[in-house]
């Protein structure tokens, strides 16, 4: 049962993932991306990571995708706005991506994956256990990531704030 679910979810996520890349309209890309996220959230549930699955849906499929759609609609993309990719660039991309795929398949083919040594604990992914790990073993990275967010916020404000001299420049032009 779980195996069948796994294959169905994997198939869906791969197909929709391909649709994200090949869809002609950006809106279709974003919509297929949402389906991909749901399929991946299903995989999380199969791995007993229920909390992660919910957070994944709320944050990615909910917040971030809505943001994507907003930006797409505001940008009003159309055929003319699409940059002209020349054939050499496409060829280079195909070659390097295929090389990476060959390397990865070669490395993963027949590689020995260690068996899970710990007994499978079905409550592993619950908030309580996640919190235990996060605030015991990973407390330093957890705290340090706050530094990352602070820095990113300060940076976003700096980029978003209007340059005072920018205002005067345009005012001078008006005069």
């Amino acid at each position: 049962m779980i195996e069948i679910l796994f294959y169905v979810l994997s198939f869906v996520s791969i197909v929709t993932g391909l649709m994200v890349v090949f869809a002609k309209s950006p809106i279709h890309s974003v919509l297929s991306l949402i389906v991909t996220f749901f399929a991946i959230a299903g995989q999380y549930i199969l791995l007993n990571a229920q909390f992660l699955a919910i957070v994944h849906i709320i944050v990615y499929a909910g917040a971030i995708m809505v943001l994507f759609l907003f930006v797409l609609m505001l940008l009003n993309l159309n055929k003319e706005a699409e940059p002209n990719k020349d054939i050499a660039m496409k060829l280079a991309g195909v070659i390097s991506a295929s090389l990476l795929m060959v390397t990865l398949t070669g490395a993963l083919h027949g590689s020995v994956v260690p068996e899970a040594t710990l007994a499978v604990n079905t409550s592993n992914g619950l908030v309580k256990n996640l919190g235990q790990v996060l605030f015991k073993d990973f407390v330093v990275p957890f705290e340090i990531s706050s530094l990352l967010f602070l820095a990113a916020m300060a940076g976003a404000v700096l980029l978003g704030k209007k340059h005072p001299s920018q205002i005067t420049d345009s005012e001078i032009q008006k005069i």
Partner: protein
Amino acid sequence: MKALIALTILAVLALFVGLLKSRKLLLPLVLLGLAGVLALVMQYGCQCEGTFFHQYLDESTYRNMFSFDKFAAVFAGMMLVATLLISMLATDGFIYNESHRPELFALMLFSLCGGIVMVGSTHLVMLFLGIEILSIPAYVLAGSNQRDSQSNEAALKYFLMGAFTTGILLFGIALMYGGSGSMSLDGLMTYSRHSEVSGMFKAGMLMVLIAMCFKIGIAPFHFWGPDVYEGTPSIITSYMATVVKTAAIAATFRFFAQIIGHDAAWMISLVWMAALTMFIGNLTATVQSGFKRMLAYSSIAHAGYVLIAFFTPSLQATQSVVFYLAAYTVATIACFAVLIGVQQQRKNDLFESFNGLAKTNPLAAFTLTLALLSLAGIPPLAGFFAKYYLFSNGWAGYPWLILVAIINSAISIYYYFRTIIAMWFHEPTDEPLSFSMLQKVVLLLTLAGLFTLGLMPGLLLDFLG
């Protein structure tokens, strides 16, 4: 860890100074704060005895996450000194965005925190966080001159490339974890040495290495470098060429030396990448017409030289990396100190703008000459001894690579001398440049650094053990 907390508080304080009416407090606050953190790090570094990499107990490394050992202390000290010097230049350097000066300082300090996390990280999660804390403020700083389209372009390029690299890095970390079942340096080391290493682990290691090469700017992953360095405001470029590069090289060295440093199979491709990096960096630098772009290519070439130390992991190799990066950092900051002055008053960075600088501004010309000679590796300056240690240690591993490096050093003399000739043998075409007090102090300090490291290399080497 104390230093990291102090530095974060300093960055937040710098943000709050932005609320005050008077901004006179800002520069003294940043300089004193950095000096204080540097004192903390130095005091700690003197306490650490013996080897660079410590195998601490669980408690002192925060559950195997972060180990502030001698290696981390030395590199953190180096980055702090570099940031201190760059902050002194910032009075003139941040002129393009006067109103956001506190934020620019704060972002630079946040980024420095990321650098310290990187050099001390002993866990892949911490390494990743460190890289992100280092890079995200750097993306913003690259685009902080919003009125300049080149700066915007640089920021976008840097950001897109960096985001893509982050994806590769994370994929690699996931594969490494999948193969070995551990993300701490300790666990990865044990895994890579004892058991049958799975292909998944190797693929992961490959992707992590690619991502790190992106960050350092090793060919063939260097393409973003020159464009980003050129478009970014010079003061930020000096930060990227010194602190960001040092942090990336140090973190790669820690992971590389300990996880795959013993495995010859990894070396083959990396040796070729080192040779390629040197040739691409040096040969492309010879055809540049701008000083800043020339420096960008030369910084790529220098990253290629540093790679030599990666192939013969030993105490001496670690020392030579530290010494080389110290010499490179001092010389690069001296170059940028002069470049900022030239760019602000001549509005470009062409070699012609340096014409006759020896007559009009002898101190700047003298410092720049010595810095360039040091980068080229002319005795008795710091760069010569740095190259000497690096090459003599590397000779045991791959003699032909050392020969390639020596040929490349000879090529580099050509383009470094273009500026020197312009300064000393061409007539001045413009009125003299004016350098502020702080800029002159930086020039004198870097000059002293070049001579001290060159004439008394023992000072630093004794400290390193």
